[in-house]
């Protein structure tokens, strides 16, 4: 089985960028309902730049791939998504030690912890954590149960999607949707939706690795 190397992580980033571009208008529509109608456009701009940066300077080191994505997102996205996604990739890059599934899961866990620290939100606040948290847990649990990485990422993607769907009835307590109070209920959180794409991209691009 091939390793979770720089090429594999680059494939993950490219697949995430492709999904964000494809879902750009859908993400923006979710954001229009409870935010300010720019999530799809901002993340698409950032991920397009991240893919371009990886093409301009291909990295052999897996952590360098994640770091390039992090600094590009922090430089280009702005808003709340820039620092949050940027912090996810930056902390994941810092924690990545090895090229197997366990190493990837530890990096994802570090990225999740970074998003918690930067955004000061908790699960249930109707944010990206509601997808990223369950996905991170599912990934760890599946690997601990001896599942191969592809299957574990599939479980993580399902957990992310379930977490995303579960944000619909929630009243937002963090982020711009929180200004709506009760009116934020009845809509899926756009950050949880884009985070689900991140995990689905990993399941697609990294199946058969680790």
């Amino acid at each position, binding site marked *: 089985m091939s390793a979770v190397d720089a090429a594999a992580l680059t494939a993950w980033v490219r697949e995430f960028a492709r999904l964000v571009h494809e879902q750009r208008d859908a993400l923006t529509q979710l954001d229009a309902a409870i935010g300010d109608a720019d999530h799809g456009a901002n993340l698409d701009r950032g991920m397009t730049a991240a893919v371009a940066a990886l093409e301009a300077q291909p990295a052999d080191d897996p952590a360098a791939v994640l770091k390039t994505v992090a600094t590009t997102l922090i430089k280009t996205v702005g808003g709340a998504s820039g620092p949050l996604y940027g912090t996810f990739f930056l902390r994941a890059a810092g924690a990545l030690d090895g090229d197997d599934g366990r190493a990837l899961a530890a990096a994802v866990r570090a990225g999740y912890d970074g998003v918690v620290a930067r955004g000061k939100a908790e699960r249930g606040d109707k944010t990206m954590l509601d997808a990223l948290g369950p996905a991170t847990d599912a990934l760890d649990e599946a690997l601990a149960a001896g599942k191969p990485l592809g299957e574990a990422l599939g479980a993580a993607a399902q957990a992310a999607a379930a977490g995303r769907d579960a944000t619909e009835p929630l009243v937002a307590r963090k*982020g711009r949707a929180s200004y709506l109070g009760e009116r934020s209920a009845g809509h899926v959180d756009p950050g949880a939706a884009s985070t689900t794409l991140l995990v689905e991209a990993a399941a697609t691009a990294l199946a058969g690795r680790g």
Partner: protein
Amino acid sequence: MKKLINDPADVVPEALRGLAAAHPELRVDHENRVVFRGDAPRQGKVGLVSGGGSGHEPMHAGFVGVGMLDAACAGEVFTSPVPDQMAAATRGVDGGAGVLHIVKNYTGDVMNFEMAAELVQAESDTEVVSVVTDDDVAVQDSLYTAGRRGVGVTVLVEKLAGAAAEEGRPLAAVADIAKRVNVNGRSMGMALTSCTVPAAGRPTFDLPDDEMEIGIGIHGEPGRRRVPLAPAREVAEMLVEPVLSDLDMTGGDGVIAFVNGMGGTPLLELYLMYAEVVAVLEKAGVGVARNLVGSYMTSLDMAGCSVTLLKADDELLRLWDAPVRTPSLRWGA
């Protein structure tokens, strides 16, 4: 969508080119999208940096100049600028007396400014203090939420802290003025129409002809409730009363009353609203010491207005009257 634009993706850099052409007294760093005072950095003067998403013009770039901001960072429409921009602005206004960041309380703005301050402080001795504005009474403040939004009071903070910095006061004193203004100011806004983000191409929300949104912010986000359209007199009450019930404004030296247009409302209606606001204040026993009427913190082409009241004192009134020379606010200089 009918807008005077070329490509939606180029709106912000192209507007900055126009600002630079119209105001040669300012210096525009096009790469970082930062507007500087032409003479920045001023040695020994505290540097004031603000910034935020574009679409709120004239805030913030229109308030760069003598007696107000030293630099303003322009983000994408309704999107916080990125840390690199804020760090470039901070370095560019550092005259040895420290830099004050004036940040509106939105999750993205707060996080990006935080990261910028970390960047600058990791590489230099520049002292950076942040003041976060959160004056919007439409949002319930709580430990468990993102807190109130920073809206109209931000313009007053930039004017008053700017005047204090221009007098040569130290960083801590300038920051104190900014905090005092934020603590003593409250705002409430309403919309008659939504607004259209150029990249989205259609209005952010639909608002029927006979309804209005009460408690809106400045990003075209829907408000807290939707009510039937009402005469200006009643709208003034709906905006002023929540402000007064949140903060007692009676007594003392009166208030600075700021009636702000959201971008798509004519000055004719803003003056009409100002008269109604004054009438509500008179009934409540609140005196108006100074006022500001006009579109200073907008939400693209949204029609509507916000009311900001700042409980004033002698010192704040003196700072208010101090000279200011910026593209969009100028008197006495």
